[in-house]
């Protein structure tokens, strides 16, 4: 019994002053994923990787905007979104104070991105930034001038139209020539 009191004396006060002074977390702490809107291209890699469906990327109701949405209440802080993001738009931060007062919608973070409409059918299929990003990547990929021009028209066609075009070409006996 007395021994325990001696131990108390030896180590003194060990509690942190938190919340009156900040609590320092470890260097590689996995806190709340921080979202940088300006870097997001709407590729939905994070949404696919997220095991708990905390991140969703989908078109809004009238299909005018691509909505990136993060529900902190569902997040398990595994950091898979951080791993897969090609532009570093989502990174785990050191933030761990996530409580909200009564209003659960405060846990939801949202980003609206401009949609790219298909040049063939006119339906929205992706984000404008993603198309721009793909072109940027291609232009750095050491392609020929002509090929790049082709790609420019190609990237703004939606997957459905690409499929129908391929099928139409194929059944008509046209060969696709890639130079």
């Amino acid at each position, binding site marked *: 019994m007395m021994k*325990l009191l001696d131990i108390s004396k030896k180590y003194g006060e060990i509690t942190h002053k938190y919340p009156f002074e900040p609590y320092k977390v470890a260097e590689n702490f996995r806190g709340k994923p921080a979202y940088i809107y300006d870097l997001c291209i709407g590729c939905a890699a994070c949404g696919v990787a997220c*095991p708990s469906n905390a991140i969703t990327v989908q078109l809004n109701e009238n299909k005018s905007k691509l909505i990136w949405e993060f529900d902190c209440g569902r997040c398990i*802080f595994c*950091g898979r979104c951080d*791993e897969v993001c090609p532009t570093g738009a989502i990174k*785990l931060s050191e933030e761990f104070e996530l409580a909200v007062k009564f209003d659960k919608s405060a846990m939801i973070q949202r980003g609206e991105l401009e949609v790219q409409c298909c040049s063939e059918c006119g339906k929205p299929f992706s984000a404008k930034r993603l198309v721009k990003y793909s072109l940027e990547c291609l232009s750095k990929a050491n392609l020929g001038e002509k090929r790049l021009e082709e790609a420019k028209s190609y990237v703004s066609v939606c997957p459905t139209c690409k499929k129908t075009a391929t099928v139409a070409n194929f059944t008509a006996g046209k060969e696709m020539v890639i130079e």
Partner: protein
Amino acid sequence: MKCDKFIEALGQRVKILEVTRQYEDQVTALVELNDLPEAVRFLYYDMGGYLSTMIPNDERSINKHYALYYALSMEGGKMFEGDEIAQDEKCFVTVKVLISPESLVFPSVTPLVPACVWYEREAYDMFGLIAEGLPDKRRLVLSDDWPDNLFPLRKDAMDYRYRPDMKEHYMEPEYDFLRPEGSGIIDVPLGPLHITADEPGHFRLYCDGDTIIDADYRLFYQHRGMEKLAENRMNYDQMGYLAERVCGICGYAHAIACIEAAEKAINLEIPARAQAIRIVCSEIERLHSHLLNIGLACEVTGNYNAFMHIFRIREYSMKLAELVTGGRKTYGNVVMGGLRRDMTGHEIKESLRILHIIETQVEEVWDAVMDDQRQMKRWKGVGILDKQVARDFSPVGPNIRGSGIKRDTRYDHPYDFFKQVKFDVAVVEGGDVFAREMVRYMELKSSVSIIRQCFELMPQTAIIVDPKFHVKPENYSLAYVEAPRGENVHWIMQGSAQKVYRWRCRAATYNNWPSLRFQFRGNTIADAALIVCSLDPCYSCTERVTVVDVRSKKSKILTHNDLKAFSQTLKNSPMKDLK
């Protein structure tokens, strides 16, 4: 090869229809339905097996039958010195039977091997398979108002999102507690809800005066249906994260067990460095879990001073987890094929520093606790788990090691890096709370040494192999991990399209519960919470007491405030209108 000896011996007893090998140390023998009890009993008692898990499975789409798998860990009875199977012959033997969907009946093994009781009760709840001859046929997992003919784990039973209508509180059927005969026996319920208990469980203690004569309990208030969830919509990437959330304390052990079951089913070997770091993380988990439990064992007996000191040290182990995995709990690290996060030299150096602090300070506080005679008197001789009861019910972890049985998965079936690490299995004779806490203290020390050895021995390899694997439908395998509370066993049968067909997750405490009844007997009500705590599952307090007078058949519920008011003023006894 391993296991052949046991299969041969079993073959002389009963007729074996088919033998299949899942892994180096895992073999399944298909036997006739009527031979099932004898086959399991023979392996359990005559060949020295312990029941690891039992898996009922709906295989109607595969072979038009239901199947039962009794997985036995063959390691020797361990009841006396030398009663143990040679280290290189230890293995898992699974006894499989097929049950026709028309009859749904199988002969119960429980009368011969008591350890099967919970598994066979669960088989009825989940699949509607009836164990003929099972002495205790009450519900186990599902709530009492669950519809009678709905068996959730049957493949055609229900969508995983379906929730049957709840009955109104007063309409709910009464759970039939096993009540001992005799006059003057008082029921004392503990639980099911208490703010400080991490799991709700309802314990019905039958007391004569202050002494507990017998006890019965109802658990699974928090049954979450994870197995159903995983079968329906998860892929292997998500499953590891779901498995982690089985438990708030030993989550990492569940993640490893689950992922390794999937890896073993396709014979995937992970890099040595990943193996070592998996061990490091699971040992960190053991550090904080054992510190938590020793702390709580002090707290339940009123020793708050020691409790605070132990939790102060526990904070270092949480720091260690934060350093190694990036979160205060060791979550989100395991994926199929290896790990997601490596350790840098700096992190290892810092970890060693923290380990040193933990090691010295734990010793200091433990010495002080051991010197405290009042504390020792509360621990010694309380909640004794008899060695023979332990043999019959296959408990795991510190619970069985405190009864002098040397059973540790890390030692019996070394997995991952444990083949290269040296450590002593902590075994203490006595079977009381003190013995169990002593085991935990000894394991704290061995954990520290295991982590150090891992740091020293781990090679510089990759931490993940390219996950180019093809799952083979209908392959199944067993994985086992020694979690802080004992052996966790996961069984996975793979389905098509990267999904699981059946996932059976058996947490350590599942095997520890059935023998708790014997541990209660003969102790006082004041020790009930301590006994439950020493199992390391959850503990409950007498926040709300129902007093039943057996003679006048009246009952009254006393609230915490009633009791408090009465004990402060000693006026207006809440018992008086009962008399």
